[in-house]
């Protein structure tokens, strides 16, 4: 059992929060995460979160789907068990297109979802620390991990001077 301590800055306004994030990061403090009742526009940029690379995964999964579908149909209908359907050649590409399209979409979608679960560690046993229940209602909470040697009072001043209405501490057991 490891436990981590966090300093929580509670904010009441979106714009104040965005401003505070910028100031806090400019002061060299690493922000663990920010909790808000709804997605805040532009917060990714302010927090310095990189754009997701999931589309690349989608592309390659889609490519796998396309190749798999084409291979499957060409092999099965053309070589493994050739059948004449509607008087068409065994390998009749136009009739393979719908299946190829569907499998491309299926592979891309499943690949993306599975990758997302793995990368973000979402699993049934995952425990999500709720820093402050009010962040699901009307407050915005900025969490900063408390490491050994962190100056708490300095952090407190920094948060308060940037508009935090409360500064709390929370211990999370993992």
């Amino acid at each position, binding site marked *: 059992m490891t436990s981590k301590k966090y300093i929580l800055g509670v904010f009441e306004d979106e714009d104040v929060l965005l401003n505070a994030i910028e100031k806090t990061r400019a002061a060299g403090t690493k922000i663990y995460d920010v909790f808000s009742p709804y997605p805040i526009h*532009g917060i990714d940029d302010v927090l310095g979160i990189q*754009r997701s690379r999931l*589309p690349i995964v989608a592309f390659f999964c889609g490519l796998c789907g396309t190749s798999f579908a084409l291979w499957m149909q060409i092999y099965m209908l053309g070589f493994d068990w050739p059948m004449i359907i*509607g*008087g*068409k050649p065994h390998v009749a590409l*136009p*009739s393979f*297109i*719908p299946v190829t399209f569907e499998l491309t979409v299926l592979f891309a979608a499943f690949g993306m979802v599975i990758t997302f679960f793995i990368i973000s560690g979402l699993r049934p046993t995952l425990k999500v620390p709720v820093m402050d229940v009010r962040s699901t209602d009307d407050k915005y909470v900025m969490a900063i991990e408390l490491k050994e040697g962190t100056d708490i009072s300095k952090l407190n001043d920094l948060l308060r001077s940037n508009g935090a209405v409360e500064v709390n501490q929370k211990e999370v057991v993992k």
Partner: protein
Amino acid sequence: MIGLGLVLLVVGLFIAANSGGGHGEAAHGAAEAGHHTAGWGQRLLANLWLNNVYLTGIAVVGVLFVAIQYVAYAGWSVLIKRVPEALGSYLLVGGIIMLLVFILPIIFTGHNTLLHWTDHSLHEVGNPNYDPIIAGKSGYLNITFFTIRLVAYFALWYMFFKWMRRESMAEDLNGGLNHYNKSIRLGATFLVVFGVTSSMSAWDWVLSIDTHWFSTMFGWYVFASWWVSGLAAVTLTVIILKQMGYMKMVTSNHLHDLGKFVFGFSIFWTYIWFSQFMLYWYANIPEEAIYFMERLGGNNNHYTWIFFFNLVINFAFPFLVLMTRDAKRQMIMLKIVCIAILIGHWFDFYLMIMPGTMRGESGFGLIEIGTALTFLGTFLLVFTKELSKASLVPVNHPFLEESIHHHV
């Protein structure tokens, strides 16, 4: 832009005049060889028809785009709205050209060789030319009704263009929400009108060239082609205006949305294309498959390369190039793709119109390029003139502020 249009127009006319000279020689050569050719008159007529149908489509798509933005209460597009709004100005010119190209050959020679069904001997029982299939369609495909429809489409489209344009200009002066609300009502009405007229005009102008053949997808197919070319035209104009120093408030976010439109609808076009192709290919009924036989393998493989080129430039190229987010946000990539799509869909219409009118004799020479440039020049002249009549930013649009801060 007007300068550019004029230069293109002059160049186009010059080339067209030159090719007229070259034409006579070609006709001579053909006559000496004792060959039967479709003749340069037919070729010119087919070219006029092709370019006019194509550019009319782009013009009406401009009006449609604005209408959709109003009906959807869209905010992002306000900054670029003046571009599609001005596109519709070509409709008047287009309508007149279309009417003349249709009616003049009928007045002088009795029937229009572009549209086979206008030959009245096909409808007379007992005449050696009698064609029961075409005669059976004469309730819809007759010269009078066709002319009435043609005039009606253009009158309706042009009227709606004028109305929406007037509201938009009045809004610049007066402000307030009245003009906006009225535009929404106009836009919604136009969507209904366009829903019917777009399919019908596609049957009239393009499908009726192959009179015996029919396709229930055809209205959609022509619409998809028009729509994606219209979007490409809007995007290209916005980029060019921005690079010339106008439209400073348009950011890569607006371009991104336009890019998504172009990307998405080039796939939509492919979807429609394939839906039509696959059913005919699969059923393989002679009277239906003949349409694709003419284009793929038929006519001595005259159209085969265009058939595949059409798919590559209108589907594979935009699909692969515009796939990433960065490509949609960069002007250079978007520009290349938009130009490719505009050229590609010209070829798409070429493929729809030429086999039915020119058989295996259609060419791609000075007369094609000349006519295309002349039309492009005229289009750009009319379009830029309209564009310059109003501020590029609709200053009193209620969603202007939202559009300025648009962020994706």
